[in-house]
C-alpha cells in the first residue's frame, strides 16, 4: 500500500509558487469533511450515552411518580399487588456480584501470576487464549449448562452445608433455607464468577506484565523466593491495576443478565440466606419484561436506569484508578 503512495509522482512543484500553494495537493476540502465525519462518529458515543439516560429516565418517571421515593427503596417487589420496591433487587445484584468477585478475583490473580511469572514462556500464550475462550462462551450457554448440570449437585452441597452449620451463629443464618432446586444467590454468584474471570484476568495480567524486570531482579537479588518476589515487587507494582480490574469485574457482574435469570430462582427478596433463591435487577428485567405493562414496565425500565448509573459509576472509578496507575507507572518507567 505504501509503495503505491511512494510510486505516485508528486505534482512537480513550481519553485517560485509551491509554498504559496498554487498547486496544492488535492483534497483540502475532503480533508475537512473527513475530519468532521470522524468527529461526528466519536461524538456518537456521547450522544448514545446521553440518549440512554434520557430515554430510560423518561420511561421510568411513571414508576417514580406512582411509587415515590420511599417505596422505591423498600424491598417489596410484588407486581400482582402493584408494589415495585427495588431495594431487594439492588441487594441481590450486589450480593451476587460480591460472591462472584470472591471466587473470581483470587482465581484471576492466580492465573495472571501463572501466565506472567510461573509458566514456561512457550505455554503462556496458549493459556491466555484458552482463558479468553471462556469469555467467548455466551452468557446464555453458561446459563443453560448451569441449569442442566450444575444446580442439581450444588443443591446437595447446599443441603449438607446447611444442616452441618444449622445452629451455628452467623453461618447458620447465612446457609439456612437452601433452595431445593439449587437455584440460588450462590449458584448465580459462581456462574457469574466464571464469566468475569477472563476480563479480570486480562487486566490483571496486563498490569503484572509491566512490572519491570529490574524490580523483580532486585527482589531476587536480595534472596527472595519467587513468592516473596511476587509479594515484594509484582503486587506493589500492580496494586492499583488489580483494584481497577476488580472494579471492572464488578461492573460486569452487576450487569450479568441471562445466565443469572436462568439460575437464581426469580424471587426478589432481602435475605441473608445465600443458598436461597433470589433475584437481581438485570435478571428480573429479563424475566418479567415480556409480561409487564404500565407501572410494572416503567419500574423495570427504571431498574435498567439504576443499573446503568451503577455500572457507569463503577466504570468511572475503575478507569480513573487505572489511569492513575498508568500515570504512576509511566513516571517510574521514565
Amino acid at each position, binding site marked *: 500500500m505504501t509503495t503505491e503512495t511512494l510510486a505516485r509522482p508528486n505534482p512537480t512543484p513550481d519553485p517560485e509558487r509551491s509554498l504559496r500553494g498554487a498547486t496544492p495537493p488535492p483534497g483540502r476540502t475532503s480533508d475537512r469533511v473527513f475530519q468532521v465525519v470522524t468527529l461526528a462518529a466519536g461524538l456518537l458515543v456521547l450522544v448514545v450515552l446521553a440518549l440512554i439516560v434520557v430515554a430510560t429516565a423518561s420511561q421510568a418517571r411513571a414508576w417514580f411518580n406512582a411509587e415515590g421515593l420511599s417505596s422505591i427503596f423498600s424491598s417489596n417487589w410484588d407486581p400482582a399487588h402493584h408494589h415495585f420496591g427495588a431495594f431487594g433487587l439492588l441487594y441481590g445484584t450486589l450480593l451476587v456480584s460480591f460472591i462472584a468477585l470472591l471466587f473470581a478475583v483470587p482465581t484471576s490473580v492466580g492465573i495472571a501470576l501463572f501466565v506472567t511469572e510461573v509458566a514456561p514462556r512457550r505455554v503462556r500464550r496458549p493459556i491466555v487464549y484458552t482463558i479468553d475462550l471462556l469469555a467467548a462462551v455466551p452468557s446464555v450457554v453458561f446459563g443453560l449448562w448451569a441449569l442442566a448440570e450444575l444446580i442439581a449437585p450444588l443443591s446437595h452441597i447446599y443441603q449438607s452445608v446447611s444442616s452441618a452449620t444449622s445452629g451455628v451463629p452467623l453461618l447458620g443464618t447465612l446457609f439456612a433455607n437452601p433452595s431445593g432446586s439449587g437455584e440460588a444467590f450462590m449458584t448465580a454468584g459462581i456462574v457469574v464468577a466464571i464469566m468475569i474471570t477472563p476480563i479480570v484476568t486480562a487486566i490483571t495480567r496486563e498490569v503484572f506484565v509491566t512490572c519491570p524486570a529490574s524490580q523483580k531482579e*532486585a527482589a*531476587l537479588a*536480595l534472596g*527472595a523466593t519467587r513468592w516473596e518476589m511476587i509479594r515484594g515487587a509484582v503486587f*506493589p507494582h500492580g496494586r492499583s491495576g488489580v483494584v481497577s480490574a476488580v472494579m471492572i469485574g464488578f461492573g460486569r457482574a452487576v450487569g450479568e443478565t441471562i445466565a443469572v435469570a436462568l439460575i437464581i430462582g426469580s424471587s426478589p427478596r432481602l435475605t441473608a440466606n445465600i443458598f436461597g433463591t433470589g433475584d437481581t435487577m438485570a435478571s428480573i428485567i429479563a424475566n418479567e419484561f415480556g409480561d409487564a405493562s404500565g407501572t410494572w414496565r416503567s419500574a423495570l425500565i427504571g431498574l435498567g436506569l439504576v443499573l446503568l448509573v451503577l455500572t457507569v459509576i463503577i466504570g468511572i472509578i475503575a478507569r480513573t484508578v487505572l489511569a492513575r496507575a498508568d500515570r504512576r507507572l509511566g513516571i*517510574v518507567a521514565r
Partner: protein
Amino acid sequence: MDTIPMSDTSHRTATVGSVLTRPPAEPDVAERTPLPDPAERDIVFELAGVEVRYSGVTAIEDVNLKVAAREITAFIGPSGCGKTTVLRTLNRLHDITAGAQVRGTITYHGEDLYGPRVDVAEVRRRIGMVFQKPNPFPKSIHDNVAYGPRINGRKRGEIGDLVEEALRKAALFDEVKDKLKQSALGLSGGQQQRLCIARALAVEPDVILMDEPCSALDPIATARIEDLMQELKANYTLVIVTHNMQQAARASDRTAFFTAEIDDAGRRVGRLIEFDDTEQLFTQPSDSRTEGYITGRFG
C-alpha cells in the same frame, strides 16, 4: 556485627608488620599501598573455565579468575563483551533468565556455587547486587530497606535498627532520616542508588556485586558512590562492572579486562583478556588488546 570497624584490621596489621620488619624510611614507597599477594587474602570467588550460553549461543567462555576478599574487583571492557554476564553468574541471577546456561565451575569460599544442595535464595542473600539503574521498590524508603530483613524472618523489633544501620552504612541516613515513610521514588537518582545499596546491605551479605552502578548518575552522585565503595571495602568484597575506565582505575584494586572477538568459527564470543592489579593493568598492560582499549579511551 554491632560494631564493625570501618577500616580493614587485617590489612592494617599487615602494614604495621611490614613497617616493623622493614627499615622505616624506604625511599621509593609507592603512593598506593601495594596490594598483598592474592594468596594472602581469602579467595571469595574462583572461576574456572566459566562459559555462559543464551539459548545455546555462547556469550562468553573460558573465564578464569579469583576474587579476593575485601577488595574491589572491577570488570571492564567494551559493550557486549560479557562482563555483566559474568557478574550475574556470581549470584546465580541467570537462573531466572530463560535459556541461559552456566558451565564451568564457580566456587564461593571453596564451595561450589552451583552445587546440588545450594539454596539459591541463600546465595543471593550472601551475595548482594546493585543494578545499573536504581531500582527501588515503589514503597517507602523504610520498607525498601526492610524488605530483605523481613523476608529473612527478622523480628519486627529488630527491623528499625537494621534499617538505620544499613542506611548509615550506605551514607544515606542523614539525608532521609526525617522521611523514612515517604516513597523511595521521590529520591534523586544518586540517593535511590545508595538506597539500593542500603537495601542490599540490610540482608548482611559479604559480597556486593555492582553492575555499572553509576552509569545513570551525574558526576557528583557518582563521586559519592565511589567514596562509599571505598568505605564498604573494609567489610565487604565488591565486584563492580563499569563502563568507565577512570572509575575502574580510581576505585578498584584489581581489574579484569574483557572483550568480545570473532573466533575461527565466526562466533562472537566474550573472553577475559587480562586480570591483574589495577595499577599494573592500567600502567603496564601485558596484552596489546588491553593497551589498545585503555589508551584508545584515554587518548
